[in-house]
């Protein structure tokens, strides 16, 4: 998300002409989930998130996984590698807040069309992809 904001530093005027920013809780309160392209960052760690990512998938034509966590689950997936002592410590929290047994990448639950790797994501690749979407009309 921060790299997305940084990529706007010099490009916002041009992108605003070509892109309708429909959904970003970071930027506005009133949002519309129905979009052409969804950019999704982060891994899937709870049952609620599984439902949520399925909704996001249904509401878009093209879904782009942004950054290492969305693509590979790591670095958010530390707990997948915990020893039993650590697993026991965190167990009550996992249960209480409806966590999944492990942390998963987006592709475990939905079809991912494109991806931008890196931690943080590679800004050049992200900008290239967005410009390609603009050029091709998605």
């Amino acid at each position, binding site marked *: 998300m921060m790299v997305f904001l940084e990529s706007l530093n010099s490009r916002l005027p041009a992108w605003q002409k070509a892109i309708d920013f429909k959904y970003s*809780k970071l930027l*506005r309160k009133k949002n519309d989930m129905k979009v052409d392209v969804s950019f999704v960052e982060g891994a899937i*760690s709870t049952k609620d998130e599984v439902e949520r990512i399925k909704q996001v998938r249904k509401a878009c034509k093209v879904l782009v996984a942004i950054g290492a966590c969305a693509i590979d689950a790591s*670095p958010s997936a530390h707990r997948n590698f*915990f020893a039993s002592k650590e697993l026991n*410590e*965190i167990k009550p*929290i996992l249960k209480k807040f409806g966590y999944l047994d492990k942390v998963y990448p987006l592709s475990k639950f939905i079809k991912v069309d494109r991806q931008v790797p890196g931690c943080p994501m590679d800004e050049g690749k992200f900008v290239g992809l967005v410009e390609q979407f603009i050029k091709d009309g998605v």
Partner: protein
Amino acid sequence: MHKDMDIKIGTLSKIEGHANLDIKIRKGKVEDVKLRVMENKRFYTQTVRGKPATAVPALVSRICGTCSISHLTCATEAIEKALGVEPSEQTMLLRKLAMYGTIIRDHAVHLYLFCLPDMFGADSLLDFAGKNKHMIGECFEIKAAGNALSTWAAGRAIHPAFSRIGGWSVLPKPENVRGVIEKLGHSREHALELARTFHECDWNFERDSQFIALVTPDFSFLEGEVCGTKGFCVPEGDYYDHLHSVIIPYSQATAYELEGKEYMVGALARFNLNKDALHLDTIRDCGKMLKTFPTGNVFSNNLAQAIEIVHCIDHATELLESITIKQEKPKEPELKTGRGAGAIEAPRGTLWYGFDIANGAIKDGHIVIPTAQNQIKMENDIRALVTELIGKPKETIVSECEKLIRAFDPCMSCASHFLKVRWL
């Protein structure tokens, strides 16, 4: 007049990370306020155990992209103190500059993208039109200047790569300094204008609380004692001994009290305690605005942040004008075992790391996040605000609560990632 009302705000907008707010009003009284941090835990407290100490700063940097330089810098300080490493003057200077870059960028995001829309009755800065449209460009110009500074000093503005335990693995290139100075210079007038805008804002919300911050001699966010507006003052290593964590059953975050009471950290606390240490050029150009402080008005946190952007530009420019980079390698730790703690002022307030290291690996670690420290005051303030607003329409109560929460500038991504552990 409404006697009963339930307010649920799912996923608060225009803050860092995810949180919900539930308010319950019964018989004209606020019965319950719950600020639920909804970010998932990634269990960093457990994750760091057994990891090589030298690898931990880059690991905890991933707690939050926005705050990555702060986590990296503070974790590095705590590990260096544990292992007997004294960073060189040049290393401290580069850390200062990287932090100034991050403060400029973070405050610009918070003030322009999260707060200004409330002041101008828009949902988003991107919707600003007419005579206010110029603010969009100014926001991104200031952000870019902050980024340029962090990138020059530390390699990247998010998860920077040059910093190591003991120093810098790759040193910045002095020939690129001029471009950074120019960018900072172009941003200065915008930052002053931004400060004037917040100074003219008459929003007020005040309750009696202690304000806590690391008091640094040159307002550089890195070194000093942790002090409070009600007489509290301890060396940074001892800070944790005066806190106790409060488990909030409905939230994924831990909260803190200081000696049994709520308190607030952040730019407002820094100004209430230490405004005289600001850069002289900043004091000269913001003198009238600085008379606002000390104040308990939470909304003045926004004004303090705007003036901090000016200070970071002024002090960074002065440091860069005379900087020379001498070739030196990171210092090697003398010890493999030890215990150490450090505090810095992150954009959102005092950040504290403590590590217990054995044979070069982390045995135990603890981290105190600014937003977790503000959580109890935030809830108490919301309760008092809603009490004042009872009888007003629901939409008014919701928007007033959102404005107040944004003034604290919480970061939910950071707040959720730690579990209370016993310090062994």
